[in-house]
């Protein structure tokens, strides 16, 4: 797949503060890539650097093969940005807001009205198009801000804390919209967030950041493997097999350790390929297996493990 965003050793300092400190990553077409980190980690600065509204202090960045410093305007023609605060003109209506940004994005006048109507309908705002934005709820404003970012159908979307400050219902609505964009339209998305559940649900890969640096990067599976190279498997039986069965299990190649309590045995194995061998061995010995459950790690486990390591 084509690489849309390529960053190598990117740096940005403000005085003595290193907001972005040697970041290296890439985003492929159709991918949802997450920048995860606490406030001040450098996520928003990275979005600004990639859109060419802030010059870098060092390193290299390419978006659609273009240098943001030299070709910021051409890059911004192909990107949509949902800023952390909705950044909407509250004294204007939803239609006026979208027509304004649509015009600046270069949508021809004859297509603009229809495009604005369509996108407002997609975001469920068609009944309030002429109402001033100041009368909207927070959730509606965020949906409108997302509509603004997408009004010119950009191939790359930057979402900076898209559900920040929203109640759970509105946050869910926004997340569903983002998920549908990614699944239905194959939209390439760079999501900057500190919401771990949101990132786990939406992102194909994430980069966990702190103080401007990337601590680790990859899919949930890859990060789990990096942090916890061995796998724990919980195996539940109708009846716990005899001690001898468990002892023979330890001799299997790839099995590291076996513990057990009650009806459940915990097996630590080197990788996922070992799990079917363990199951085969146990059933061959006459064990009645009720459930095999490789232990899952959430992005939250990964995130806090990485941040703790950083401290």
């Amino acid at each position, binding site marked *: 797949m084509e690489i849309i965003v390529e960053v190598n050793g990117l740096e940005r300092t*403000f005085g003595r503060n290193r907001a972005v400190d040697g970041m290296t990553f890439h985003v492929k077409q159709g991918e949802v890539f997450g920048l995860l980190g606490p406030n001040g980690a450098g996520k928003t600065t990275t979005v*600004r650097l990639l*859109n*060419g*509204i*802030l*010059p870098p202090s060092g390193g290299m960045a390419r978006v659609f093969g273009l240098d943001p410093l030299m070709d*910021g*305007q*051409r890059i*911004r*023609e192909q*990107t949509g*940005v949902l*800023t952390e*605060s909705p*950044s*909407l*003109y*509250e*004294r*204007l209506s939803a239609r*006026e807001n979208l027509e*304004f*940004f649509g*015009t*600046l*994005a*270069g949508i021809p006048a004859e297509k603009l009205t229809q495009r604005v109507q369509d996108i407002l309908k997609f975001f469920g705002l068609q009944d309030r198009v002429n109402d001033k934005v100041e009368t909207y709820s927070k959730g509606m404003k965020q949906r409108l*801000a997302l509509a*603004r970012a997408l009004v010119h159908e950009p191939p790359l979307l930057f979402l900076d804390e898209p559900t920040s400050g929203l109640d759970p219902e509105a946050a869910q609505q926004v997340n569903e919209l983002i998920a549908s964009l990614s699944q239905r339209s194959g939209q390439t998305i760079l999501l900057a967030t500190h919401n771990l559940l949101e990132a786990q649900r939406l992102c194909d890969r994430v980069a966990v950041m702190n103080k401007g640096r990337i601590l680790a990067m990859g899919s949930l599976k890859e990060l789990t493997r990096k942090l916890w190279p061995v796998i724990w498997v919980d195996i539940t039986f109708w009846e716990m097999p005899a001690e001898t069965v468990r002892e023979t299990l330890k001799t299997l190649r790839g099995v590291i350790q076996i513990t057990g309590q009650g009806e459940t045995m915990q097996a630590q194995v080197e990788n996922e390929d070992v799990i079917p061998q363990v199951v085969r061995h146990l059933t061959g010995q006459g064990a009645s297996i009720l459930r095999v459950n490789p232990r899952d790690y959430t992005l939250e486990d990964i995130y806090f493990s990485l941040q703790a390591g950083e401290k």
Partner: protein
Amino acid sequence: MNWRSIWTIAKKDLKEVSQNKMAWGPGIVVPLVFAVFMPLMFIILPQVIPVEDVQRELGDLDGMLRAMPPALQVLFEGKSLEQMFVLYMAGFMLAPLFLVMPLMFSTVIGSDSFVGERERKTMEALLYTPTSDMELFLGKVLAAVIPAIGLSWITYVVYIIVVNVASYPLFGSIWFPLPTWWPLMLWMTPALAVLGISATVLISSRVRTFMEAYQMSASLVVLVLGLVAGQVSGVLFLGIGTTLIIGTIIWLVDAALIYVSVKKFKRSALVAKL
């Protein structure tokens, strides 16, 4: 340069300003006072008060008239006491006061456009649009300059009508505007509108709120008050030549300020202020 984007930014700013009462309030009150109430007062008063009171006023005026350039003194020859009073007040005394308008309008609108946008947290989305820094700058400058000049000219037209209608019983003819008003309206008014906005752009990089920007920019009115004082004291009369010279100086200052403003108006500087 994408003029569609520039006009879109200008129109949006104007729409926003039109909904900010703090911004357009002065835009209605000041023209009403300058173009309607003050001329009516100065024109109707000498037509209703006793001639001896006008004579007393003329005593004060006499010295001022003598201080005028000979070319302007000619305008007063053969006029009655009341006519001289009206001519002096409506034709000369109020003239520099009108210069407050372009300055005030452009600083109010400019403050709302440049600082208000940041204050209302709408600037960031604007910076992410595919417009150049120059297009953003021009859009915002035009949003301030065009209405500042337009409103000033509308006020002049109203003033011309009010003066001629109210003084018709006294003069029996349409006598206003005097030749000295043309350079004031067409040369100095646009220069001051541009001065207001270029100063506001520079000030906007140092302040955080609309009110701060407005108050600092409005201090430029002192320049105009200097002209008023000069006119009242007889030190400086805004004749055609003087107005053209002062206007040219202001245009030169404008050019310098615009040059510096364009240099300073960068996305990277604006985003750092968010």
